[in-house]
């Protein structure tokens, strides 16, 4: 599906030129640590964008502060590196006032969920037309290694020498609780999956939240190793695919079912009948939420990736635009004069 076929991108100008990944590379030197997972994501995004066929100047990346938030500098599009946690708010003003832009937000687990949690939630609830890429490395990278709101309990970091006593957020659950219309999760190292998810996000009208598990090899190396290691990944990862029964394990020997008490559970070897079929388009987010709860925060066993939810709800942008249009255009300066005069005037000669 190219951009011209994506209704959500209707208003964004297209190009006929053939674009390459390198067209999206800016002249700025990339300044992440060697080995950082951010490189893989950058490369994936740069390779993915040409498939949309949008005019480069109509794409904007807005970010907050953090290692991840350096992202816009490396993209040869418009870009705004803002302040900590506020990117969704800033991007909201841009997106609502400029329907001809494809607006992407790049943020980190601290930026999006700690200081910026409120803006993220409100963007989701309003369904502002933003594609939000949340690089979750479960640590504060840029400030050199404090725990974040997604760090596992008991984590020992610079600020928690005795181990963190915080219970972490699950970004997918949080987003679903905040009325998100599109929520997905993917992994820095899985280029194909990442690209697929980016495509679905781009095609979505409204806010698309994409959580990307990202390795910070300096301060939290191997955080997602169980999901990457050849020995464990098949047993740990649940790949959600719309319309497919949810089975996993190297030989599909595990499955997700709904149980008698209403709970969604994973089981070993189950008969077909009971296996839950994934419905990303279900109006009710209840099952998607339940799927987000399967993962073990520490071992990462039963971690679902893919698109949890993707439903249609008019974007805030569209509804706001419709009100503008309904209001009509003023009849030039006559109207302005009428407005400021109001009904009660008198004349002094």
């Amino acid at each position: 599906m190219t951009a011209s076929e994506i209704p959500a991108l209707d208003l964004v100008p297209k190009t006929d030129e053939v674009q390459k990944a390198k067209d999206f590379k800016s002249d700025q030197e990339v300044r992440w640590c060697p080995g950082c997972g951010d490189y893989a994501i950058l490369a994936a995004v740069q390779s993915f964008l040409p498939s949309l066929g949008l005019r480069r100047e109509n794409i904007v990346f807005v970010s907050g502060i953090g290692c991840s938030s350096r992202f816009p500098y490396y993209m040869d599009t418009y870009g705004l590196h803002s302040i900590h946690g506020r990117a969704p708010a800033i991007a909201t003003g841009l997106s609502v006032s400029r329907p001809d832009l494809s607006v992407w937000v790049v943020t980190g687990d601290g930026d999006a969920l700690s200081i910026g949690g409120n803006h993220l939630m409100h963007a989701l609830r309003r369904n502002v037309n933003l594609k939000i890429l949340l690089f979750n490395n479960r640590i504060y990278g840029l400030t050199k290694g404090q725990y974040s709101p997604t760090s596992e309990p008991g984590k020992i970091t610079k600020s928690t020498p005795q181990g963190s006593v915080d219970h972490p957020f699950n970004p997918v659950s949080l987003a679903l609780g905040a009325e998100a219309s599109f929520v997905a999760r993917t992994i820095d190292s899985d280029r194909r999956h990442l690209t697929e998810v980016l495509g679905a996000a781009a095609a979505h009208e409204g806010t698309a939240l994409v959580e990307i598990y990202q390795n910070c090899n300096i301060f939290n190396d191997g955080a997602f190793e169980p999901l990457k290691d050849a020995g464990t990944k098949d047993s740990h990862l649940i790949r959600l695919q719309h319309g497919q029964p949810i089975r996993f394990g190297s030989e599909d020997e595990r499955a997700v079912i709904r149980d008698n008490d209403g709970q969604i559970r994973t089981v070993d070897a189950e008969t077909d009948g009971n296996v839950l079929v994934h419905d990303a388009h279900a109006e009710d987010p209840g099952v998607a939420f339940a799927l987000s709860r399967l993962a073990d925060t520490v071992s990462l066993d039963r971690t679902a990736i893919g698109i949890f939810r993707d439903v249609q709800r008019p974007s805030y942008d569209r509804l706001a635009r419709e009100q503008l249009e309904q209001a009509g255009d003023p009849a030039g300066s006559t109207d302005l004069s009428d407005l400021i005069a109001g009904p009660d005037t008198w004349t002094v000669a």
Partner: protein
Amino acid sequence: MKETQRRSDVVIRFAGDSGDGMQLTGDRFTSATASFGNDLSTLPDFPAEIRAPAGTLPGVSAFQIHFADHDIMTPGDAPDVLVAMNPAALKANIDDLSANGTVIVNTDEFTKRAVQKVGYEANPLEDGSLEKFSVHEIPLTSLTVGALESFDVTKKEAERAKNMFALGLLSWLYSRPVDQTRDFLTEKFGRKPEILAANLAALEAGWSFGETTEAFEVQYEVGKAALPAGVYRNITGNLALSYGLVAAAQRTGLGMFLGTYPITPASDILHELSRHKRFGITTFQAEDEIAGIGAALGAAYGGSIGVTTTSGPGLALKSETLGLATALELPLLVIDVQRGGPSTGLPTKTEQSDLLQAMFGRNGEAPVPIVAPQSPGDCFYAAIEAIRIATQYRTPVLLLSDGYLANGAEPWRIPDVESLPDLTVSFTTEPNDTDAKGEPVFHPFLRDPETLARPWAIPGTPGLEHRIGGIEKADVTGAISYDPDNHDYMVRTRQAKVDGIAHTIEPLSVDDPSGEADVLVLGWGSTYGPIAAACRKIRDSGLQVAQAHLRHLNPFPANTGEVLRQYRRVIIPEMNLGQLALLIRGKYLIDARAFNQVRGLPFRSEELVEVIRSEMLGESTTRFESLTEESLA
């Protein structure tokens, strides 16, 4: 017919419970007075609570109007007439009444319980405490109920119309027209014909009561004021500000985006603008102040006129993002309708105590131009001027209004919109430089040599793709730079850009009719009226005094120092502890005297007269803040 006496001006204060409709009554009286052709000025004063408990002091809501047959400057120091709908209203306001003033009380509400509830030991109508005033005891409630007996309304509904009875009575007493009020009621209660009829009847009954009762022997007349020719309307500061924004947006040719979060007394600007989408105005009620300014900044990045409105606590929250805007060098208008502080303070009262927050409330060297209107109607022009600066200099601008301007009203000569300045903005659409190889390139921080403004190149412009951010940028290219000398240069350049605005603003002008004054009173913002009124009174008494008023607080007009140095003494009255005074003293090394009040209310001009006069005559200066050693820090 009764006797009619002429008055050159009158101050009336309507006071009652929050639920008594005093704001509406005042509003209607104002409207009639405006259309009659008087000059006028109003001061609403209402509690922070939505409906404070009936009959209590904190629940009193008041509205003061000053109207005259000549141009006036303030809502008046002391009312000539107090309308007190209950004991609480009497108690809360009686001390302000002018000597020999008139009190109209609603006796129905002066029950023993009601009187005691507000702490009166005895009924003030009976204990002789009102002796020095001319008191009219009128059972307003029962008269209204009586007049509406034949109407199809409940007793409660009938009682509620007592404010219209009072309005009718006062309209008669001061010979005000009531047609407009009739129209207004018809519009308002169009769908409830019984209520409409009852209110119209109550209005009528009040008027007739004045005409027929013996209690009132004289009717008053206040002639039309000789205002400059033109078409006029009555306007509050918040409304004028809203219209100024609409007009400015139109003159720039761009859309406007208001990102904001409700807060008293700024919310009405949101309410007003949300009704004018047809002028290309998008209003966004954000989740908080930070998101409000953030969204406005994002829209500005996209090429809209970004605006955010707030009051003091909200401005504090916006600090960090405002700093980002200074670093990004994008146009943005931040409107602070100041209220009493610190913290939640006195949310419905007025104050000028955010000036230094506006100047300095950001990390690092982050200069922001500041504009302040001086009267309700002037809010219109201040908004336009602020947007001129923001767009031409690519900078956030702060506009400081206050609670008094916001809700106060005055007659306003409606401008011809064609005469407003042309603010057409042109975005950069082409490369503005060449690289080492002679290829055309776009440099987002290559400045206009005149204004030092950087180009405004918005997303969607092919070939000008670029990235900006809050980290220090290299001169010209805008690439991230940690170079020490570049930083020093950029810090100074941003400051120089803001300082340079002084070249495009009118010089500070002095009002000194005789040209012989050696004392200058310097003000800013909403104190204009009280200061001007005080200066006029002083001149009327045969002394000379000069007045100058700052519309631009940052930068100051280029001639400010020169002007101030011409006077033996400069006096700066402010509704804070001396904030402008600090800036003036620090910059010009002039021993300006600060006269400060932080009472949540505008200055009374009589008080200013006293203060200025004692300074002129070299009498006791104890009323001045000693701005030297002891107290200013």
